[in-house]
């Protein structure tokens, strides 16, 4: 059975050290191979894009799939999200998914 890559936001990061997760947010400034991702719950995550530099983000909002380790998300892949993506509702969905992990992980 394949392992899950749960959707989380900034406040749940500490629970997923070393795990592959999905974090959505608004693309911020670039710093070399890194990009700042402003998460849906107003956090900031450093995304290390060095393994996926050939592909560029095409939208302002993205979902990054990567390994969370040492306060950094090492990007494996990403998915473009629409500009009208509702962060508040998404955060509520994440909270509920954490309460019902049995159908998510």
């Amino acid at each position, binding site marked *: 059975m394949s392992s899950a*890559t749960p959707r989380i936001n900034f406040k749940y990061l500490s629970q997923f050290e070393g795990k592959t997760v999905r974090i959505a947010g608004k693309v911020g400034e670039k710093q070399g191979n890194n990009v700042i991702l402003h998460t849906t719950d107003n956090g900031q995550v450093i995304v290390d894009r060095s393994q996926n530099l050939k592909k560029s983000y095409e939208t302002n909002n993205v979902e990054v799939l990567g390994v969370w380790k040492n306060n950094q998300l090492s990007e494996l892949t990403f998915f473009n999200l629409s500009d009208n*993506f509702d962060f508040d509702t998404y955060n*509520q969905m994440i909270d509920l998914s954490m309460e*019902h992990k049995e159908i998510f*992980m």
Partner: protein
Amino acid sequence: MTNNPNENVIVRTITPLTIRQIQLSTESEGNTFKIDKEFVMNVSLVGTVIKVINGNTYTNYTIDDGTGQLKIREFKRNKQNNMIDQEEQEQEQEQEQVNEEKKKSEQIQNPFENKYVRIIGNLKAYKKQKSFSVNKIMEITDSNQITTHFLEAILVHIQRINGVSNQGQTTSQESQIKEEKIEIKKETNKNKNNNIITQQNTDHILGLALKDKALRLISSNQTSSGISLQELSKKLKSTEEEIREIVDFFLDQGQIYITIDDEHFRSTD
């Protein structure tokens, strides 16, 4: 499939699921599966396409929705737009797959690859394994559909494990639905060109949550005259019109009855 006509109706509805739920499902009679104690056949999923294998008569997709991965199959249609006979094509399946995997890996990228898609399909047993056959696959352009899908999956899961059926009827056990935490804003999509399906789904979830709250309030009222329409309207922060629709539904179902006048109700439980 049982002889109970109500269960036949339930199986034909489309159930929003996660791949994790499909992985945990148990096979039941009639080639169907049970998830959260309910028969499930028609399913909707939302996830990303991570792999595509094209065959002459079908396309295999591997979908990842963050809860797991699932291989699904979309049979192609012939010139008459008929589904090519499944049995006929599955006889050639093994031979084709080996040849095609080599050839098709160099083909033009499938338009769904690495994109979020919504899938409507059938979950059934085939050769003692779970098989997912695609009826429709569509790229998601409004990402709020991702959120809505998982909210729907959570709501249906909560309702089913607490014994609320698709018709909104409760069992004799007390419902512990956490719908007060699903505070979905009606203006989920702020763009004027909102996807209508997303908004309809959001309204549907809110409607179900309101019905369940109303029934709980009526059931918890122990006075001989029952609870009034006005009190329900005030406590649920809804118009009397909306509450009237809900109580009419429960009156038809026989779950509540009128007491001193047609604006006071008690539960039949």
